């Protein structure tokens, strides 16, 4: 390195020469195809590092040498190279890169132009997620990518989000895609200490995202090997560009409301219905107690009416549902700066956002900082760093199945006052007889007491970053080395104070739970990239490299009780430690990967890729998996015979086949293990715990994809169609083994399933000119079928199961047949059983009022048959309007809470939905709601009575903005000012009777890896007091200067 000072000297001299030679100033304006000025265009003097960028109006000014040539470029436009000649003014009109065929698409370990791509990749611009008022970016791309189904489980903020790329490819393993940020796979799995999942992806600042690439077929994803079966999401963060430093300041504020509320009985209706239900039970008494049911019920009503008789007149009429929700403000501040020179470029950003959930006590707060830096050390060596720091604080609320979750407040009787007049405290907070919270008033534990008396805060600190060095060895060949770290430190703290005693225990005197997780991983990627064109027609691109990744998760937790008062919440003040634990787990992955793309005359395209993954999770006999893929494409429009036409601007059929894997199961599933938990009255002991399976390996998915991309009328219309078929084998399952072995199951690769589907995408630029209108439409269908589970049936949710011959999670249960008009009995179809023991729907078998006598049958599918979205974007002068409708069709939703709140007063004293007033009352009544029979469970067994069509169409996002004229900006010394209105979930069209059709009960959907028995993939399409989605509206301003 002795020559370094010399090098620097030479550089300095060169720069000085450049500076000396700049003796002319060129000014001009860069316009877009519509004639308006284009801001932020890079203008570079060719062969030098001298450059600038255009201002908000598109104007620029640059001092250049005589006879210079300018290179004018901007993302989304075709670059132009213009010799300036002798003039001092140069106005340029850039042509839109309309078909986006030259757009660089981010793929595994590199980029490729869209035109040359032979795999199926959907790339979305960071613009799609910018300023979206949602905690995590996935919510902002719902309905925007074909083949990618995204579902937020509820309106709780900070919760897990389901993302399925081309269907569900695993029964008991992971089903979420692999997330890779700037080349480094990141922690994306559930970190929650409860069975309701959280989402570490929310740690990313959406405004930092430059692009999102979803790798869907094997050709695109096989280079990620044993983790790619569920698709791969590549996120690239924004980087600085040479030129003046640009600042962007944003502020946004708004509020959220629930998308929907349900109608429940009012006080008078409630009393009427329950008196009627009690009268039935007394008239048909089966026990001595029931012979006085009417009096018993009257006493209950009085108890729930705070011990007075107000219930008899309806004087107290509480709408408890309203109490579950809160005013939910949202605010976000962000600032970023980017710029640099030809040697060093930077992007730095900071963001603070605070989003209150619609449910009482629910909040998500985020502070995110980022520094991305690239430095050209020599003309061959580039160094850089990408560093993201995040702190999130999530005030969580109880799982959907907990009495303490806000939504379960709807169970409380409308005759119960919100504030108990006897104590002037919230109902349930105080029993004047005992001085403690009430034990049997109101009907159930009042969730509002959790809001005032307990906290559950998850705080996480995340460091996600990598450094890289890239060296250009010689023309076309470079070597890149990356070292990345992802460190997630999460602390969960729960304290349940004395007022929550009815829920947390009267003897506890305060209950605390603290859990800490340190989840860290490091990754290194080292690879060569080669690109060259031979004999003008043969283009070769190749990647060859290796990567190593190591991951470790340490967790510990403490539970304690007995606090002197609620002023003491930390466990240091607890008189009794009731439980404590620490655990540690980890894995490592060693990989080699490569890819060769060959193009002949940009016409015939071939791509080969492969990855070898060695994983600590695999059995010793199956340490390394091999994942190859091959794809071909033909750009027909490059053929001579299509040159002389103007209709078809692009046509490319392509085919790919390859295999990918899934290894998202517990870390040590292949090992024979002993457990040390077998102590006997204080003496420690151990026991055989798990049978070794040295043959355990990844689940393999072989995917075939046939695609067609076409552009018409100079790219004004472009379509992309894909047909795919994913065959997954070696599903890793807990297989029953003979109990005489001392074990009941062994984790083995045994099952098969398949997904097949079609994706259709259409982009049109309907109007160009001053007024522009473009449309993006996508539609996808996926069919899932389990083909082999070795005869096992795995159940989940309320009625879900995984069974051979059916889609995963199919609803299987008794079919509700309505109400017997003669006597008000709930009826079920008997249906039939075939000779193989399989049941099938056949209403000719008649009905029965005996729930147990009815055969269980396949009732429906929780997986949508069709999903899609349509986005329209309009611009006129400074105005812009964009909105996305999202649609989900062909799925069913099971409302697990129905048996309680839509049970025609036949279960407990839960308040009922208003439709229960249609109950059968007298012979001849034709209705679907059975007679009200208190405690008789008339029709409240799990059945198709509570299974609903889950289809919906939703105005998912809407953005309306106005960019102030640049003429104004000059005076304000600003580049740009845009004011905007954002809305999420503005309108919903559905026949679903529950709160919201975008739903999945959180406690059933834990994806927490580490167990081999999760039924989360099976428990789909369920609601259980699950909160509706948030309808969020915000106003904001973005200022560039």
């Amino acid at each position: 390195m002795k020559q370094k000072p010399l090098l620097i000297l030479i550089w300095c001299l060169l720069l000085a020469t450049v500076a000396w030679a700049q003796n002319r100033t060129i000014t001009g304006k860069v316009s877009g195809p519509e004639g308006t000025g284009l801001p932020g265009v890079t203008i570079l003097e060719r062969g030098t590092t001298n450059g600038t960028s255009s201002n908000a109006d598109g104007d620029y000014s640059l001092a250049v040498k005589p006879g210079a040539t300018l290179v004018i470029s901007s993302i989304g436009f075709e670059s132009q190279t213009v010799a300036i000649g002798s003039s001092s003014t140069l106005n340029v009109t850039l042509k839109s890169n309309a078909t986006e065929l030259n757009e660089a698409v981010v793929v595994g370990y590199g980029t490729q132009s869209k035109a040359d791509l032979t795999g199926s990749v959907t790339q979305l611009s960071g613009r799609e997620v910018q300023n979206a008022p949602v905690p995590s970016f996935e919510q902002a791309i719902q309905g925007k990518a074909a083949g990618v189904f995204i579902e937020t489980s509820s309106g709780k903020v900070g919760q897990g989000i389901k993302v399925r790329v081309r269907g569900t490819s695993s029964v008991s393993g992971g089903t979420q895609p692999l997330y890779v940020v700037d080349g480094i796979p990141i922690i994306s799995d559930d970190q929650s200490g409860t069975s309701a999942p959280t989402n570490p992806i929310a740690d990313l600042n959406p405004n930092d995202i430059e692009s999102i690439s979803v790798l869907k077929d094997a050709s695109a994803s096989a280079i990620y090997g044993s983790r790619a079966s569920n698709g791969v999401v590549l996120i690239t963060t924004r980087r600085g560009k040479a030129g003046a430093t640009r600042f962007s300041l944003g502020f946004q504020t708004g509020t959220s409301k629930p998308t929907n509320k349900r109608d429940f009985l009012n006080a008078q209706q409630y009393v009427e219905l329950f008196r009627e239900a009690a009268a039935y039970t007394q008239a048909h008494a089966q026990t001595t107690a029931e012979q006085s049911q009417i009096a018993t019920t009257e006493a209950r009503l009085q108890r729930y009416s705070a011990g007075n008789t107000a219930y008899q007149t309806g004087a107290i009429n509480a709408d408890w549902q309203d109490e579950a929700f809160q005013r939910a403000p949202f605010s976000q501040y962000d600032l970023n700066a980017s710029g640099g020179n030809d040697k060093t470029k930077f992007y730095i950003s900071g963001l603070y956002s605070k989003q209150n959930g619609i449910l009482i006590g629910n909040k998500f707060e985020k502070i995110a900082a980022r520094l991305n830096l690239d430095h050209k050390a020599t003309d061959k060596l580039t160094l850089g760093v990408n560093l993201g720091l995040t702190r999130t604080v999530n005030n969580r609320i109880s799982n959907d199945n907990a009495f303490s979750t806000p939504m379960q407040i709807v169970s409380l009787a409308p005759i119960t006052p919100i504030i108990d007049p006897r104590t002037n405290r919230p109902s349930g907070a105080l029993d004047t007889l005992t001085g403690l919270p009430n034990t049997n008033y109101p009907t159930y534990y009042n969730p509002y007491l959790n809001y005032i008396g307990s906290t559950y805060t998850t705080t996480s600190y995340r460091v996600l970053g990598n450094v890289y060095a890239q060296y250009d060895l010689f023309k076309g060949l470079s070597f890149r080395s990356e070292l990345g770290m992802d460190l997630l430190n999460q602390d969960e703290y729960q304290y349940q104070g004395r007022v929550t005693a009815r829920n947390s225990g009267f003897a506890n005197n305060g209950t605390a739970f603290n859990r800490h997780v340190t989840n860290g991983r490091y990754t290194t990627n080292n690879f060569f990239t080669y690109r060259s064109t031979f004999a003008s027609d043969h283009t070769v691109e190749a990647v060859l490299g290796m990567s190593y990744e190591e991951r470790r998760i340490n967790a510990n937790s403490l539970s304690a009780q007995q606090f002197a008062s609620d002023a003491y919440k930390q466990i240091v003040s607890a008189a009794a430690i009731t439980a404590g634990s620490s655990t540690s787990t980890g894995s490592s992955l060693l990989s080699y990967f490569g890819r060769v793309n060959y193009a002949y005359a940009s016409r015939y395209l071939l791509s080969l890729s492969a990855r070898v993954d060695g994983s600590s999770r695999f059995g010793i006999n199956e340490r390394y998996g091999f994942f190859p893929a091959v794809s071909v494409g033909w750009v027909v429009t490059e053929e001579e015979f299509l040159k002389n036409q103007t209709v078809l601007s692009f046509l490319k059929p392509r085919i790919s086949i390859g295999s990918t894997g899934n290894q998202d199961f517990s870390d040590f599933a292949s090992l024979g293990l002993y457990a040390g938990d077998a102590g006997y009255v204080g003496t420690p002991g151990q026991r055989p715990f798990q049978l070794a399976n040295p043959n355990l390996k990844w689940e393999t998915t072989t995917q075939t994809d046939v695609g067609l991309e076409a552009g018409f009328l100079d790219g004004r219309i472009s379509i992309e169609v894909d047909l795919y078929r994913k065959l997954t084998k070696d599903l890793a399952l807990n297989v029953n083994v003979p109990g005489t072995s001392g074990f009941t199951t062994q984790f083995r690769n045994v099952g098969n399933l398949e997904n097949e589907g079609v994706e259709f995408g259409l982009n049109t630029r309907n109007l160009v000119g001053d007024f522009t209108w473009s449309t993006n439409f996508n539609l996808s269908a996926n069919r899932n079928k389990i083909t082999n589970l070795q005869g096992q049936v795995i159940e989940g949710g309320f009625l879900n199961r995984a069974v051979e011959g059916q889609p995963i999670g199919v609803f299987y249960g008794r079919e509700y047949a309505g109400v017997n008009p003669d006597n008000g009995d709930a009826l079920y179809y008997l249906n039939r059983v075939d000779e193989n023991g399989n049941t099938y729907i056949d209403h000719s078998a008649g009905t029965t009022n005996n729930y147990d006598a009815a055969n269980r049958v396949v009732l429906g599918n929780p997986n949508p048959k069709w999903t899609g979205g349509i986005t329209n974007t309009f611009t006129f002068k400074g105005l812009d309007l964009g909105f996305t409708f999202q649609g989900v069709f062909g799925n069913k939703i099971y409302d697990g809470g129905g048996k309680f709140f839509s049970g025609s007063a036949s279960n407990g004293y839960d308040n009922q939905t208003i439709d229960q007033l249609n109950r059968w009352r007298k012979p001849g009544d034709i209705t679907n709601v059975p007679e009200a029979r208190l405690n008789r469970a008339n029709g409240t067994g799990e059945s198709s009575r509570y299974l609903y069509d889950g289809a919906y169409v939703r105005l998912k996002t809407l953005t309306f903005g106005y960019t102030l004229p640049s003429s104004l900006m000059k005076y304000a010394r600003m580049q740009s000012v845009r004011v905007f209105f954002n809305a999420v979930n503005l309108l919903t069209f559905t026949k679903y009777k529950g709160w919201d059709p975008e739903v999945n009960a959180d406690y059933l959907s834990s994806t927490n890896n580490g167990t081999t028995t999760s039924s989360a993939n099976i428990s789909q399409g369920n609601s259980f007091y699950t909160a509706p989605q948030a309808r969020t509206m915000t106003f904001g301003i973005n200022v560039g200067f």
Partner: protein
Amino acid sequence: MKKITHFIAAAALLTSTLTGCDKKLDVEPLNNAPTEKALLTSADVEAALIGTYDALQSRRLYAGQIQFMSELLADAGELSFVGTYAQPGEAFRKSLLVNNAFVANTWTESYRLINTANSVLANISKVETAKRDRVEGEAKFLRAITYFELVRLYARDWNDGNPQANLGVPLVLTPTETIDASAQVSRNTVAEVYTQVIQDLTDAEAKIPTSNGVFATKYSASGFLARIYLQQSRYADAAAAASRTIASGKVLVAYADEFTTTTNTTEDIFAVQITAQDALNELTTYFSTLGRSDVEIQPQHLALYEAGDARRAFFKTSGGVVYTRKFDQPYGNVKVMRLAEMYLTRAEANFRSGTTTGATPLADINQIRSRAGLAPLTTLTLANILKERHLELAFEGFRLGDIKRNKENVGTISYNSTRLVYPIPQRELDTNRSLKQNEGYN
């Protein structure tokens, strides 16, 4: 060009260093121990023995379900099961289904215990010499009593047909390392299982010391031998084994005291230990008003007691329903073997074989009667002895075995009815084609 060469060299070095990390794929589990490292030292094997006791403490086994379910099967109107669980209900109605989860779990948990015991025995040479006999004896004791319960529940009784031909349960005597064809075990005969049980217990009696804390002792082993010989009607052997056990120096305590303590009493020969931190007494769960109050005691049972019987006083009435108080200690130990049983066994065995090994039958019976506050008998019949046994050991899991060996009926159901035998669990038949289902089930 030199720099390039350097760089290529550096890149190659970096790449090769990292590719040399094949060993990095061997990640050690930390929450659990790899099987190959679990049983290396004496302490390791001793810990596995404790793990075997822990298995015995499963609610599916001696923490209560074995006793509870057999009492329900044996009942003919002395109690009533009113709980909501379907599985005990099937036992109470003598109509067990092949997929009864209690039946399946008792089977799998038993073999889990047996596999743990087998692991101890396969590694017994690693145990320090001074401890080796005890550890071996205890492991064999635990394996034997589990096989004895299995063969009694899942197969025809010793006295029902030909035990040399009747199918018992599979004898698995080595630890499982892999699942292959050898895991498809078939059922040994009833006689083969009894032979193994007696051999293990005989070894255990020889190898376990007379005093061993709350763990099995020499007398626990001899006591079980007495129980088994009695089941086989080998009366002289049973009397002798019972005598050896009575010689332990154990003494009867006041009847109420026996069932109101949370620790072992001086009467207890073997008990499964329960503490607030470790396991639950499943008999409390079902029989007690502190539990689910699932078993109501019927007048037919109460009528059996003579006036003044302290054991008759050991019931309580709540809401007009009678419950036993035997299991009113939620963290009380589960009494598996009490000294009273040994007196009753010796009395019966001596009476039937016309011997007086240890003591006369009359003296032994009067020990039990006097402890219950009853006047001593002066003459004795077999019926006296059996009735005393019935009342003294009521609800403790003895009734079914006694009915079968005495060839009594359960109501109208004959002692040898297939309805009084557990089915082989469906999950076992599904996973092991070599198993044959019991008669009466398909």
